[in-house]
């Protein structure tokens, strides 16, 4: 960030917040809760950047610290401006910034559910992340949280439509529904075939990964975050390792960075081809679904031959990568890419010329650029609305500085544009893959990583197949992370979707939902595994909440997979 920008921001915020620059691309603005809204308002008047994430940090109970830190990260290119607010744990109240930052509510709700920070002015609404029977007043991301305190409260089964106003008709979609490959819940109020209202409920696959990472060593947490998502596992691991390496001050060999980038791009190819099939299926075009998934096998085979795995590739190490790409593997990738490029040309032709398909995509679910920026959409969804941000270019990481990528975007804003942008991105993937393979740097694959990571914090932002993925890491100098905050791209895209479906036709809902390539598994992360009644104990269905110990889980896993035979 240039010093002029820095002083512009300082000038705008004035005495409302204390400014300091922590590195050439980061700036901290310390404000107190009373002046936060004012400070953010004058900052937003500069029209600088977008809200990327809100991180909550619990310092622990009173004798040690007694405060909760709330960090509002605004980003533009590689620069990050962070508003930092500290509030006492026993009276954690901050104003909502959603009046000036319309994309904030989901982040703020996560903050209030997970850390118990009361966000004043946040529109009342149902829970988004914790389950409905989660006890009130128990906050999983607080340091003194104990699983024993999470005793489910009694609740009656919700009845669909019980809350509907007279004259409205609600069509529920999910958590189990053929259109959703992962659980989420949507309620669409319809008038005939026209949508008049929409709401979303997330959190069905919350697995406590952020909390779990705090209880593992820096190395173990790597394997945990890689399992956040089954489609873009590598990008999570990459974001995490880049963050830890920055914290530990490690310089990773260029060959390792290049190999990471190759896997990133192969993963993007696999993700986009998978999406193409799913999105076509949602529009009732199963032939395209079957063909694109057939061709996707090419890239799956490549990933398997290079890394040994089809899903969680486990390529990254702290300090490098695990597997090498030799001349034979490089040739295999080149051949695969040649085949895929030819097929992708065919798919581009289909999504832009097939008459029946265009009837389902052209002009459907248009998110204008202005709306896209207001609600903070990211990734291909945003680029289909004319936003040109692609972190691979805007804030290059890994080997993207050396092998630049041209962002693909479209001004058309509709569903067709989302197809075109993703399919065209595939060509860019193929080009970059060839480029890297032709100029693969020599040298080591990894350097040793320290067991303990020096005290400090790091922000790591990467371009996942679905858009900007944000990691915030904090170390207190120990062998375990103090905080791992993950903000996945899917979370940013909901607000725009829920707003754009109103006025559309019911039949277009699956298509529009698929348009943002939602990943619920990424979306939902934090918390604890409970079971209702032990087998052979008090009978199933009884609400005796118990937490599984590690030994029990392990024994269960062994039994489940037939280890007892």
């Amino acid at each position, binding site marked *: 960030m240039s010093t002029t920008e820095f002083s512009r921001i300082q000038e705008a915020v004035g005495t409302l917040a204390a400014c300091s620059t922590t590195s050439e691309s980061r700036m901290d603005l310390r404000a107190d809760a009373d002046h936060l809204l004012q400070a953010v308002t004058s900052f937003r008047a500069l029209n600088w950047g977008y809200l990327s994430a809100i991180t909550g940090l619990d310092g622990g109970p009173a004798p040690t610290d007694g405060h909760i830190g709330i960090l509002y990260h605004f980003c533009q290119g590689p620069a990050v401006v962070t508003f930092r607010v500290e509030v006492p744990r026993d009276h954690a109240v901050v104003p909502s910034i959603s009046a000036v930052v319309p994309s904030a509510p989901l982040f703020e709700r996560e903050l209030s559910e997970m850390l118990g920070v009361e966000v004043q002015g946040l529109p009342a609404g149902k829970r988004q992340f914790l389950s409905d029977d989660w006890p009130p007043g128990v906050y999983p991301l607080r340091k003194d949280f104990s699983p024993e305190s999470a005793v489910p409260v009694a609740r009656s089964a919700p009845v669909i439509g019980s809350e509907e106003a007279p004259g409205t008709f609600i069509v529920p979609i999910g958590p189990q529904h053929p259109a959703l490959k992962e659980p989420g819940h949507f309620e669409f109020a319809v008038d005939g*075939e026209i949508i008049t209202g929409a709401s979303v409920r997330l959190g069905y696959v919350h697995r406590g990964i952020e909390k779990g990472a705090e209880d593992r060593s820096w190395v173990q947490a790597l394997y945990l975050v890689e399992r956040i998502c089954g489609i873009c596992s590598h990008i999570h691991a990459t974001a995490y390792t880049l963050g830890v390496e920055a914290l530990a001050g490690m310089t990773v060999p260029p060959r390792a960075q290049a190999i990471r980038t190759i896997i990133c791009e192969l993963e993007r190819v696999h993700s986009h081809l998978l999406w193409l099939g799913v999105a*076509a299926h949602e529009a009732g075009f199963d*032939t395209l679904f079957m063909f694109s998934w057939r061709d996707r096998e090419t890239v799956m085979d490549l990933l398997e031959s290079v890394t040994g795995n089809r899903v969680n590739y486990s390529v990254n190490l702290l300090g490098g990568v695990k597997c090498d790409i030799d001349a034979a593997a490089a040739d295999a990738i080149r051949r695969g890419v040649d085949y895929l490029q030819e097929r992708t040309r065919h798919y581009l032709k289909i999504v832009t010329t*097939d008459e*029946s*398909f265009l009837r*389902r995509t052209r002009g459907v679910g248009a998110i204008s650029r202005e709306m896209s920026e207001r609600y903070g959409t990211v990734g291909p969804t945003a680029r289909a609305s004319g936003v040109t941000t692609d972190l691979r270019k805007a804030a290059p990481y890994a080997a993207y500085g050396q092998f630049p990528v041209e962002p693909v975007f479209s001004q058309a804003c509709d569903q067709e544009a989302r197809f075109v942008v993703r399919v065209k991105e595939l060509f860019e993937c193929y080009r970059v893959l060839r480029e890297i393979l032709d100029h693969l740097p020599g040298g080591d694959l990894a350097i040793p990583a320290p067991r303990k990571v020096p005290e400090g914090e790091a922000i790591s932002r990467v371009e996942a197949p679905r858009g900007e993925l944000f990691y915030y890491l904090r170390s207190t100098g120990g062998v375990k992370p103090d905080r791992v905050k993950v903000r996945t791209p899917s979370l940013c895209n909901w607000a725009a979707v829920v707003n754009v479906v109103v006025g559309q036709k019911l*039949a277009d809902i699956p298509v529009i939902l698929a348009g943002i390539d939602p990943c619920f598994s990424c979306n939902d992360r934090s918390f604890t595994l409970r079971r209702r009644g032990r087998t052979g104990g008090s009978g199933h269905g009884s609400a005796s909440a118990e937490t599984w110990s590690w030994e029990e889980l392990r024994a269960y896993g062994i039994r489940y997979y037939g280890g007892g035979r």
Partner: protein
Amino acid sequence: MDVLLAVVALLIFPGGLFVIAASLAYEYVDRKLVARFQNRLGPRWFQPLADFIKLLVKEEIVPDGVNRGLFNGLPLAALAGALTAALYVPMAGLAPSWGFRGDLVAAVYLLMMMTLCIGLAGANTQDRFSLVGAVRALTQLFSYEAPFLLALLGPAIAAGSWRISEVNGYAREHLWMIVTQPLGFVVALIGLMGKLELPPFDAPEAETEIVSGALTEYSGRGLAFFRLGRDIELLIGLTLISAFYLGGLGNPLAFLAKTLALLAVTAALQSLFARLRIDQTVGLWWKAGAVLALVQLLVLIALKFAGVQL
């Protein structure tokens, strides 16, 4: 003796068992062809029968808030309608088992019972997907039914009879009517796909939107009967169109060749398109389908008055 023959015709051949077996076989061919067009392996030959038996064995769950009589009776009515209609068409290339003046109209209405029953079945439950599916099924009925009927009337007018066996006989002795009435043929074939809710006209049961449409709440016997009824409709539809437009059906061999050729065409059409929204389906039928069928019919009537030998 006559009574015995009538019972055989009704229960074994060409009605009853034969129709059921043949329609399951045609379902297999349809599924296999679509699967191969989509680069899939597709089912084994006995899969439709296995599905049918499996559904018969499964528990039929009657949801709360439905009229039980209707819930159980509608699948039977739909199946009975389809089985009855089979008696009036030249099944297997043989003469129809029954026939009377105007049986064409009766057969078309018997075929329509299926859609009506599906619509009622959906409206009978409180399930939201079923309700939306029922509305869509009935909306679709009102769009394809008129053009479909008009398209079948074309050959009847040419033959000067509304009796299926006579139209069939006329078709066998004259130039194939796919040549003389191409518009009617196209409308009839696409109309059949609309009737059977085959892609791209599968909005009433669009899986990704409304799960299984009007039949969402059906799980066992009822679902088996509805599915079987639909298979029989496919068979009857193919038979009717081949008899009218593809030079008539005179023997089992011609029957097999012509209906399977038609089936291959519908399978290809099923895999070519993305699903149409219900508003697009209605638009397509009233803007294109009905107009085409009417034009065809008016030309026919005009030629008839002019005394041209068709």
